């Protein structure tokens, strides 16, 4: 795959009072231009740390190992090893970011048009004022902000939550990045507004051939917006694959648990997952989900399982190529057993 973003064995370590922890632990993923990868996880999964690592916004003292290759016009850049002065060109210019709370991400004492203009000027210093103004209005219009000339003169508090988020999207895309990282962009919005913002992001992704990393805890939103999905638990990806495949045929017990615990409009049996997410300083041996897993075996606590591919034709001895378009994999020994059983059936 021609990857726009190619993350390879990325690890983020943070110092704590009880030693180093790894909120992102040996993680690999790929995103192609024009594709949306949904990243699903709860608190403590590491999904926000991952997005911060990909924007160079990790807290001081964090250590990063591994690679995160961003395809650039001339040459690839390894985000894991960029220096701060190199980040200024990448942030906004090559990677745009949209956060959850538009009210805290926007400057309350600055008109919104000026904030978008600031994002443009930061990456193209030589533009004339008139040109900046035109680009600002164009960016707002592209983000479906109605009456962009009038809105540009308003302050954030004068806009609704949905409009503020559109302004965030306009700012994130103003300097023409090819990768957009959206961290829970619709969680704080009403559901009718959420629907509009998701539709907007999808439209822009297609029009601008953006690659998008969409981080959320909401499986329904992932179903609507993503092509592929990766599920995170305590710093690792425990399942990934085409979104429809993973949601209708989940193979990791945690994914199954999340689906069973997600409320829908059908008054069915909501099934919580027993127990709680472990602290990173107190991870159990072997598979981090084992203590909460209804199917756990002795081998589960021996070692962290690798990602096994779900595909009867493939041998599980070969580590899967993470991110090939149709591949579905899960970090669970049960998958390896099922595959062997399927292999035997196929062979017979």
């Amino acid at each position: 795959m021609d990857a726009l973003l190619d993350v390879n064995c990325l690890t983020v370590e943070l110092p704590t009072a009880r030693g180093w922890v790894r909120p992102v632990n040996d993680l690999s993923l790929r995103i192609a231009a024009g594709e949306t990868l949904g990243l699903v996880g709860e608190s403590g999964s590491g999904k926000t740390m991952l997005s911060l690592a990909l924007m160079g916004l990790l807290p001081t003292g964090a250590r990063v190992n591994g690679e995160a290759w961003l395809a650039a016009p001339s040459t690839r850049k390894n985000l894991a090893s960029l220096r701060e002065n190199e980040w200024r060109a990448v942030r906004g210019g090559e990677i745009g970011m949209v956060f959850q709370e538009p009210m805290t991400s926007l400057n309350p004492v600055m008109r919104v048009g000026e904030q978008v203009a600031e994002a443009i000027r930061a990456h193209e210093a030589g533009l004339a004022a008139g040109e900046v103004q035109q680009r600002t209005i164009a960016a707002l219009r592209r983000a479906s902000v109605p009456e962009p000339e009038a809105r540009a003169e308003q302050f954030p508090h004068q806009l609704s939550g949905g409009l503020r988020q559109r302004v965030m999207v306009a700012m994130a895309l103003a300097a023409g990045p090819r990768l957009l990282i959206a961290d829970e962009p619709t969680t704080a919005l009403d559901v009718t507004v959420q629907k509009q913002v998701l539709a907007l992001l999808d439209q822009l992704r297609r029009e601008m051939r953006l690659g998008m990393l969409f981080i959320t805890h909401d499986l329904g939103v992932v179903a609507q917006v993503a092509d592929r999905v990766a599920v995170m638990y305590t710093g690792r990806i425990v399942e990934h694959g085409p979104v429809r495949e993973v949601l209708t045929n989940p193979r990791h017990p945690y994914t199954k648990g999340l689906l069973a615990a997600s409320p829908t409009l059908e008054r069915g049996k909501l099934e919580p997952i027993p127990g709680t997410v472990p602290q990173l300083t107190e991870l159990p041996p072997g598979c981090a989900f084992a203590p909460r897993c209804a199917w756990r075996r002795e081998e589960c606590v021996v070692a962290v399982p690798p990602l096994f591919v779900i595909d009867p034709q493939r041998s599980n001895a070969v580590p899967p190529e993470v991110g090939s378009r149709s591949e579905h994999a899960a970090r669970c020994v049960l998958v390896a057993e099922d595959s062997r059983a399927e292999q035997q059936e196929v062979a017979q």
Partner: protein
Amino acid sequence: MTNEEILLQAVDLRKRYRRGGGAFAQGDASNEFTAVDGVSLQITRGETFAVVGESGCGKTTLARMLLRLIEPDGGKIIFAGRELTTLDGAGLRAARRQLQMVFQDPYASLNPRMRIGEIVAEPLAIHEPQLSGGERGRRAVAMLERVGLNADFAGRYPHEFSGGQRQRIGIARALILRPKLVVADEPVSALDVSVAAQMLVLLQDLQREFGLTYLLISHSLPVVAQVATHIAVMRGGKFVEMGEAEQVLRHPQHAYTRELLAAVPELPKVRATA
């Protein structure tokens, strides 16, 4: 089986706020904002009555008026046969024993300087002053255990707990007086999916065990669909639709209800494994 006792009745409740203002504000209508615009409802014992709506619809203002945390500008509230709107002092305090609230923000609704055992015991200190400190402590611990927290957590402070645990503490505090009606304002919206599911199951278990009636305030139709017996859809300070949960969800009459239902992102069904 619910008996037919009407526990809470609201008749034409209203609440207006003045926009802008200050000492020189004119009292004309253009400055006023109507948060609750003539809401009536009836909650029967044993029900879970849900008010669902988007931000700014007035549902939280409505919930606070029903507990008289905010004073209504118009209308009546009748709780367990007594008119709540005219009570004060000892009468209101007595009524509040039966009418408790679980708040939305598990981080803001617990006093950070009190140990959680004290937080849960506080309603007893106010409403049952004849109890000894030891007895209060015992009941508080029993309640903490009932909501799934260890007895030895009683000596800890709120900041030592996760959002889900703090929400459990809030529930323990609301239930220690064995109220008849519990108003839950967005009880799970700040929680992770799996923690929210545990909370909803806990709330339903406690409802059965203690014979509770719930008024649930939520922006989330899926959450409401799981637990509500009756649903009222609120917009612009008014109920646009109200009825039994199954009816409202399956046969919505109002265009806005249909819009809300259509906007819920759909999860495809998990394939049954052989």
